[in-house]
């Protein structure tokens, strides 16, 4: 009797598992399925609150803002953070243009939305040009270029295979999709754009994986698929039925389903945990598909009732900022060189003194000179191939805006677990408050930490020779093992502790990196952040 019952239970379990598994894979390649995915993400992110209440908190990602801007919501609570970033004046050309676009999405207008287009107009990079074009599509006007000129510039960047990439000769799915999103409003009006977009869509079709998903930045991920969905829906291509995007019955929705978690959110890598960026981008993609059905585009906003943001957002004169950087750069290089020269001269003087000593003390055997020569060569070689900076040159330098930026990431450095318990640990536990940085393709968590270290003026001590061997031993003079043999620095990306060396963990747009000091290999960190 017991046996039969347990058998029955196992069967039931198996059945229910199979049923839910089947539900997650099928039945989503319809508009209803897309709506369902978007609704579940929204339900998770709002944590059961009303959407408007959630938006009133002001802490909503850009992907949600772009998507919800088309609904009947009031996004004014979210504009403060965007306005603050714009007023501050730093950030890459692309991120500033994206912020200006966000301002429009939130339903506000400000002269900066036009002014931002002329910042670094000739060196905004492909990402800057994409967001510039989005701004122009929304009726903004630049003083230094027209929409036609910018479009030609983007078309000139096209690679021989018909797509776009940040670097190299082969099209990248994400970048191609993002360019298409910006060009979409001109399709049908401008024959060159129409032809280019047709070719690029066909290229994307050939790049689709057999499971329906897309690969970008090293592997298949839902973000790349989401970008393609936004591009296709903006172009009016139905990504669920178009023959170029159905592979053996699998559509992009089937590709996405592989990354969908039980709570409706998405992970970045198959089998991974919740990823905020992936979830956000999938939401934007689903909404973009739904908007296309209403004849709307994700990045083109209704400008009928824009309110003027009553703030002066003009950043502290960008021209002077660029001038000072160009002035200080050669100056810094010269001083670093002179420091190196001083050390080289000191080594030379010491070597000469040693030679004189050997000659005076009648140690004239060749072995003495060989030994001296070897030591001197090692010292000179080491000095010559080293980067030597004074702290004044090294720290307090904000990295220049990156031309090949693929997005922005946030980094902070905290030591709550030992706050105030060491001269190197500030009492509030904050060594570096969250700040945004541009990130180029392939840049790692360690690169980001180095940039933050230079901007924030705190030293980072590390061991290793790169290529996945780098290990951070100390930050700001707070070293590993200073609080027991289990203490040291750990990092999380989007709240998840990553099991690879920090110079191997590459960054993606929207990632949030936190370096935290632990006293017991991470066991005490969740406690502090909670």
């Amino acid at each position, binding site marked *: 009797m017991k046996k039969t019952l347990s058998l029955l239970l196992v069967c039931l379990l198996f059945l229910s598992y199979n049923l839910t598994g089947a539900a997650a894979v099928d039945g989503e390649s319809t508009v209803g399925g897309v709506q369902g995915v978007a609704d579940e993400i929204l339900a998770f992110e709002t944590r059961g609150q009303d959407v408007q209440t959630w938006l009133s908190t002001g802490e909503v990602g850009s992907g949600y803002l772009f998507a919800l801007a088309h609904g009947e919501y009031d996004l004014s609570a979210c504009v403060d953070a965007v306005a603050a970033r714009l007023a501050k004046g730093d950030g890459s050309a692309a991120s500033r243009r994206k912020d200006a676009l966000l301002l429009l999405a939130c339903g506000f207008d400000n002269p900066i939305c036009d002014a931002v287009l002329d910042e670094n107009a000739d060196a905004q990079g492909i990402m800057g040009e994409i967001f510039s074009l989005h701004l122009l599509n929304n009726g903004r006007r630049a003083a230094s270029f027209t929409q036609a000129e910018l479009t030609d510039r983007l078309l000139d960047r096209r690679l021989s295979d018909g797509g776009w990439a940040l670097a190299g000769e082969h099209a990248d799915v994400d970048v191609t999709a993002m360019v298409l999103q910006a060009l979409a409003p001109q399709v049908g009006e401008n024959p060159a754009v129409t032809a280019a977009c047709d070719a690029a869509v066909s290229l994307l079709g050939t790049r689709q994986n057999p499971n329906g998903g897309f690969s970008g930045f090293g592997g298949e991920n839902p973000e790349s698929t989401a970008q393609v969905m936004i591009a296709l829906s903006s172009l009016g291509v139905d990504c669920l039925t178009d023959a170029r995007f159905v592979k053996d019955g699998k559509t992009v929705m089937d590709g996405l389903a592989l990354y969908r978690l039980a709570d409706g959110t998405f992970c970045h890598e198959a089998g991974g945990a919740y990823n905020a960026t992936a979830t956000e981008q999938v939401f934007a993609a689903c909404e973009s598909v739904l908007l296309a059905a209403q004849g709307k585009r994700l990045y083109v906003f209704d400008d009928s009732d824009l309110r003027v943001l009553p703030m002066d957002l003009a950043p502290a004169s960008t021209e002077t900022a660029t001038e000072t950087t160009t002035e200080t750069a050669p100056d810094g290089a010269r001083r670093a060189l002179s420091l190196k020269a001083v050390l080289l001269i000191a080594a030379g003087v010491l070597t000469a003194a040693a030679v004189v000593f050997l000659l005076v003390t009648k140690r004239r055997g060749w072995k003495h000179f060989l030994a001296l020569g070897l030591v001197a060569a090692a010292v000179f070689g080491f000095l010559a191939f080293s980067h030597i900076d004074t702290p004044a040159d090294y*720290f307090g330098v904000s990295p220049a805006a990156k031309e090949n930026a693929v997005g922005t990431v946030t980094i902070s450095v905290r030591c709550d677990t030992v706050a105030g318990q060491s001269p190197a640990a500030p009492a509030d536990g904050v060594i570096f408050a969250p700040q945004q940085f541009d990130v180029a393709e392939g840049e790692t968590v360690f690169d980001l930490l180095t940039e933050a270290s230079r901007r924030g003026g705190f030293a980072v001590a590390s061991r290793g020779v790169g290529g996945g061997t780098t290990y951070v031993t100390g930050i700001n003079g707070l070293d590993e093992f200073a609080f027991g043999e289990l203490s040291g620095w750990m990092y999380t990306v989007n709240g998840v502790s990553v099991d690879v060396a920090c110079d191997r963990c590459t960054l993606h747009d929207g990632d949030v990196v936190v370096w935290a000091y632990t006293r017991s290999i991470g066991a005490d960190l969740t406690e502090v952040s909670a």
Partner: protein
Amino acid sequence: MTFFTVCHPAVTALYVLLLSLTVSVAFHPLLSLLSFCGGALFYTLCGGKKRMHVYACLFIAAMTLLNPLFSRKGTTVLLVLNGNPVTAESLFFGAFSAVTVLAVLYWVSAFGRFLTSDRLLYLFGAVSPKAGLVFSIALRYLPLLGRRAAAVREAAKANGLYGDGNWIDRFRSEVQVFSAVTTYALEKGVLTADSMEARGIGVGRRTSYTPFRFRRADGALLAFVLVAAAVPLTLSFTGGIAFTFYPVLTTPADGLAVWGAVLTYGALCAAPAILYGREELKWKRLRSAA
């Protein structure tokens, strides 16, 4: 005839042991510096080689410059070398550790000339006669092997069998010398064992001859050493003079404890030189009086 040549070996051994132990346990830059100065002075007075001081300076310079390359600790950034900080604390710790190591080296080599192998045999004989015997034989055999090798080399050269035209020749010749010395050592080992057995080693309980007398002066010195070492040792074990190098150089808050340790340990470091100098003065006075 100086103080330590007639001093009881146990007191001498305890002296050098406590001098070295304190400086390595206390880990305080002031104590290390005192120990270094005292050790270098005593080493020089005892007729140590002047070249040692040159090596000591080079060692300190090398450790000071090399430590920051391997230890990136500390907060006072002086330079940024390949993205890593070179800190004042790290430089200081490099110099400190070199000074500490050299202090111990100076003391051991200076006192080493008073702790001859017969005294060591006597000291170890009290604990384990067998270990003492092996130790003393080993101590004798290492220099003996060197002398024997030199003799073999000379003989080979005299017979024209030692080629030193280039390093390959020399290597070949040295291999031959090594082979001869090894054969000699094995043979000598067997002979020594036979000789010792013939003289009745291991037959019955062994008596020992101790030519060392524990004089009143030894007792006074022993009391002084124990008291003078106890203060800094106790203070360092209780953490009263714990100096921190990282992340910031910090002297202990209790200034009195530090001064107590510095005075007592300073006396401990100065005593050998003073005792030695007194003998020297007496000798010179006697000579000039004569």
